[in-house]
């Protein structure tokens, strides 16, 4: 297996595996965020559990960071190799005749998601790491106040319409990325095309429902707490 991940197909498998993990992560992130719409208390409880449970913090979080970094770095490496495989471009190339826009522009939707992740990390992840691991406050409580801080922090972030706008744009590109990425990951992992139609159906469903849900959550908090 030593040369497997250096081969073109091995890298396809690795990209697919990291994509599966990220899509699963996105699903649970979405489920927890949706709690904030229905029940601030439930959202606080779930956030506190995810933010303090050792297995999530010391096992899943490092795996997630590795998965995100790997998916982006390998995406760039493969894009560079793929561009190098055709040195001279066509004078006329009718890509729309044989493939979807989403499938031909994964690098651009991916770059938009990367830019969003930088903003998202600055917004939530870095302050969270600072509070818990630098200042050492693992209580999850509002400073000098009562109750958990998670819901208030979330609602506060979505007061700024520019941030909400940036999140909405990013989720549209996430949807475009998933429109191709979901079924493509299964195809790379060797899924039979006998199931192609079902996979593409579920892929499109996932690619619409999850980003649309995230957009709804951002708008909900913007209009309910502004």
């Amino acid at each position, binding site marked *: 297996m030593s040369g497997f991940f250096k081969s073109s197909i091995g890298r396809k498998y690795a990209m697919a595996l990291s994509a599966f993990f990220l899509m699963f992560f996105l699903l649970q992130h979405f489920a927890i965020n949706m709690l904030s719409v229905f029940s601030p208390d439930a959202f606080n409880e779930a956030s506190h559990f995810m933010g303090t449970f050792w297995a999530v913090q010391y096992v899943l979080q490092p795996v997630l960071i590795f998965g995100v970094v790997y998916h982006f770095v390998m995406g760039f490496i*493969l894009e560079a190799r*793929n561009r190098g495989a055709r040195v001279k471009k066509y004078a006329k190339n009718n890509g729309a005749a044989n493939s979807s826009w989403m499938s031909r522009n994964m690098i651009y939707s991916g770059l938009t998601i990367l830019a969003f992740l930088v903003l998202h990390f600055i917004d939530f992840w870095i302050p969270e790491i600072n509070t818990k691991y630098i200042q050492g406050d693992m209580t999850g409580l509002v400073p000098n106040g009562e109750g958990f801080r998670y819901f208030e922090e979330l609602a506060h972030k979505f007061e700024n319409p520019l941030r909400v706008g940036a999140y909405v744009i990013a989720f549209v590109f996430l949807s475009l990325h998933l429109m191709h990425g979901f079924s493509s990951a299964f195809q790379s992992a060797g899924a039979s095309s006998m199931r192609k139609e079902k996979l593409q159906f579920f892929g499109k469903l996932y690619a619409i429902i999850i980003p649309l849900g995230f957009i709804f959550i951002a708008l909900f908090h913007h209009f309910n707490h502004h």
Partner: protein
Amino acid sequence: MNLTLKIWRQSNAQAKGKMVDYKVTEISEHMSFLEMMDVLNEQLINKGEEPVAFDHDCREGICGMCSMFINGEAHGPDRGVTTCQLHMRMFKDGDTITIEPFRAKAFPVIKDLVVDRSSFDRIQHAGGYISVNTSGNTQDANAIPISKHAADEAMDAATCIGCGACVASCKNASAMLFVGAKVSQYALLPQGKVEAIDRVQNMVAQMDLEGFGNCTNTGACEVECPKGISLENIARMNREFLSANIKG
């Protein structure tokens, strides 16, 4: 029909090359695209100019020799045909048609529209065959039961003519549909299973060595393939490759 052709002209492999415009007249809509190119070349020869070099052989859609990237698509705008079977009725009088060679680092241009596709031959040499024992004890192939489904899928994969339209159409210049078809046609049959591990590993290694890009599942290859080779063959190759690496 009277047409304007924008054709890639390149005198040899080292030359820079450029697009050149030509007017071609009195083209019948019943002509094949290659016959139209023949008419153009006769006009060029009569004027004392260098004819356009292009690949062709059987002109029946089975040899895989003809290529050409026509109006932004391998083998032109029609589906399920090679350039020799593309008819001029697919175009309109007065049209401008852009004609380029198949472009990939692994398919260098030799002259004009002729490219060197020997990288495909080297991939085939790496494992696209079965080693038959001809000692006299060879079992009759018909004595081995094969399911209809496996036989059909193997035959479908074997219809690949190795023209390179998949590479030309893929935004990554990936050869995975070609290699997937060649791996599949043997992997599905009992005679091919004996050498399955070495075959897929060696063919994929050679494919990577030749400098083809990586498949990103856009599906352009399947759409443009004149023989309708399915993406399923790429998925099967991926499964074969994983299985070979675990077993081998």
